[in-house]
């Protein structure tokens, strides 16, 4: 197919609904949930849940059907779809509404993606069916630990098999779990926990485990107070002899030496991070667009608008800034759409996913900071949302790998270097 920048039809159609939700449901309570950290945006959750469970049902059905066809890992894309770019548009729009509220969307989320990527058909059915009906539910991914941020090989949460009960026994602590409390305490959800079967093996010893709400020995210990995205649930979870069924391991329990070809399960599950990076970028871009649109509108009220095309010496300093912000936003957006389109086409996109994450995280951080400044006291005031968008935006340069980590990933890819060659 030739180069084409047309928004796919189905994605366009979805846009109207999303815009309505963003404007009518999210924007209106944006400030409230920023000021009432740890309260839940129930209007949004209840509104969006019917759509989410329908989507979850379709995904699950689709995945099981593919599995039936013998495409076991459920990860092959036979033909171009618009699933990823659709998600990118959706997330951008919802984050334009409110990034913190968007993050509270009830769904299987990253946990679901990991289960879809490496779960057996039985596991998919068992774990993901709950997301297709009933009350709103959340899935969450628990990776980060107090002493292991980007360095996943430093993870110390242990998983040991108790041969008597044939259960996995988990011990350790996870932090920065998005929607962790919603998943474990406020719904019949689940989390995917990364734990090591053998710390001496580094990454090769690690496995993802599904921990369902109500599992014994699992405690949500702390809800974080954050700079921004305060509507989003971020918690610490402690595992003290937490017990889960043997079948809750994702992928094979057999271990290989480090350096040996990493097994498919691990890689597949890790790939959920690759696929989530364009989503983080999209969320950043939604916030950036919100801030830029608002700033343009306010400045237009003061008589400052951006010319379609003008020589530099005809521009004011503020016009120049607006043009630069617009260009940065567009550049990041195109990189993000490209990363999504590649995945939709069934092509590898790990490089492009990190590229868009780096660009969007950095651009939107700068854009929102500039918007606050351009609007003077009104930008800095909590009477308007610009200051909030600046706080919300910053998370995107941090989570799912900081800008530095993602730049490192890009660098390794373009140089063809291993982790060892380029630390």
């Amino acid at each position, binding site marked *: 197919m030739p180069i084409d920048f047309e928004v796919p039809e189905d994605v366009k159609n979805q846009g109207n609904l999303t815009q309505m939700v963003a404007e009518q449901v999210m924007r209106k309570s944006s400030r409230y949930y920023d000021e009432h950290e740890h309260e839940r945006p129930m209007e949004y959750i209840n509104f969006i849940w019917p759509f989410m469970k329908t989507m979850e049902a379709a995904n699950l059905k689709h995945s099981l059907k593919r599995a039936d066809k013998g495409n076991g890992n459920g990860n092959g894309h036979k033909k171009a779809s618009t699933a990823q770019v659709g998600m990118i548009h959706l997330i951008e729009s919802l984050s334009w509404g409110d990034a913190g509220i968007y993050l509270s969307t009830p769904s299987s989320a990253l946990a679901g993606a990991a289960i879809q990527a490496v779960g057996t058909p039985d596991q998919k059915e068992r774990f993901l069916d709950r997301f297709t009906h009933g009350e709103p539910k959340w899935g969450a991914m628990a990776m*980060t630990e107090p*002493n*292991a*941020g*980007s*360095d996943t*090989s*430093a993870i110390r949460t242990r998983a040991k098999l108790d041969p008597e009960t044939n259960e996995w026994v988990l011990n350790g602590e996870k*932090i*920065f779990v998005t929607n962790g409390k919603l998943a474990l305490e406020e719904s019949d959800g689940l989390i995917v926990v990364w734990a090591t079967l053998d710390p001496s093996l580094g990454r090769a010893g690690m496995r993802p485990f599904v921990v369902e709400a109500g599992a014994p020995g699992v405690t949500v210990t702390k809800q*974080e*107070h*954050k*700079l*921004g995205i305060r509507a989003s649930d*971020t918690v610490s979870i402690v595992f003290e002899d937490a017990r889960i069924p043997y079948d809750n391991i994702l992928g094979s329990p057999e271990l290989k030496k480090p350096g040996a070809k990493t097994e498919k399960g691990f890689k597949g599950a890790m790939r959920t991070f690759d696929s989530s990076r364009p989503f983080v970028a999209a969320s950043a871009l939604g916030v950036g667009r919100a801030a830029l649109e608002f700033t343009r509108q*306010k*400045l237009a009220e*003061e008589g400052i608008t951006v010319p379609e095309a003008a020589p530099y010496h005809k521009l004011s*300093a*503020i016009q120049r*800034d607006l043009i630069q912000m617009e260009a940065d936003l567009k550049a990041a957006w195109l990189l993000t759409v490209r990363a999504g389109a590649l995945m939709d086409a069934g092509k590898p996109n790990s490089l492009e996913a990190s590229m868009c994450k780096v660009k969007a995280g950095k651009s939107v*951080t700068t854009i929102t*900071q*500039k918007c*606050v*400044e*351009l*609007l*003077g*006291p*009104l*930008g*800095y*005031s*909590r*009477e308007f949302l610009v*200051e*909030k968008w*600046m*706080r919300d935006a*910053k*998370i995107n*340069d*941090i*989570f799912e790998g*900081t*800008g*530095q980590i993602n*730049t*490192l990933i890009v660098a390794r890819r373009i140089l063809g270097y291993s982790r060892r060659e380029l*630390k």
Partner: protein
Amino acid sequence: MYTFDLTDEQRMLTDMVHRYSERTLRKIYREAEESHELPPEVIEQGWELGLLPASLPEDYGGFGEYSALNGALIAEELGYGDMAASLALLAPNLVATPIYLCGTEEQKQTYLPLFTDAEPPKAASAFLEPVILFDPYQLRATARREGDAYVLNGKKAMVINAPEAELFLIYAHDEKADSPQAFLVPTPAEGLSIGEREKWMGFNALKTFGVELKDVRVPAVNRLGGAAGIDVQRILNSSRIALSALGVGLARAAYEYARDYAKERVAFGEPIAHRQSIAFMLAEMAIDIDATRLMVWEAAWKLDKGQNATHDAYLAARYATHVSLKVTDGAVQVLGGHGYIREHPVELWLRNARSLATLLGAVTV
């Protein structure tokens, strides 16, 4: 000839303020931010340091002399501690310094001794306005001469502790003089109303208010500088230098915090400061902070020498705004997820840094 050393007295001064910042402000900043309230005893302790009396000559009840450079040294150390507390503590200066710089002899004799008491005076400056395109040289609030009085109208923003103020220094566009002038307005003043407490992204412990002026009548003798009025640039130069120095202190705090964190925090088997991406960010922070401090010092030194420091103060303010934002943002970045939560101070410093351009009166973006 070029020297960049503090005198012994300056070193004692900065050491004293630094101790206050470190031992007092750094202990209370988070609780104050989250509760939106500064402990009164903290400001009292700060007042007891005698920073304002030390910047006024004996003639007016003080025991020192006005020095923009000393002011910058103090402001940097305070900024290193906490911005909300710094601004609360420096709020009386925003009234006293303009009186000292631009007041008539009589105004100085009358008002300045108030600022040398054991109790902090209840005085508030009203300069900024709640508009997007704020222009310190063309204020929207107006002062119209009517007989032996001026009539003030307009809206002001970010007036610190306005409800308690017994004396306002209010800036307005003097229609006849066609320039910004300042007026000493004791309370209660008919037509002056104080709005709700304002809500800002940062320094939430600081209490600021909007102030509305509806035909507020002020005796003509209360115009600062009397018949001659004021050159607002003198006041702007002085406040730009002080605020820029505050920004340097803020940036330094963030840089040091990030540096120490980066040396402690281990990832991939080594402290993250072993990585060039982190180490280079820190190096650039250090360079930018030093450069900004030198620019602030030079502007202050020029001001103290009686030279024209307007452009220097303007450039320093530009740099301070930019650098304090860049450094605090970088500090959040160095701490990663930990920088984003309200346990570490860096997220607050980033929010506070972003206020500088606004506080400086749109001097720079």
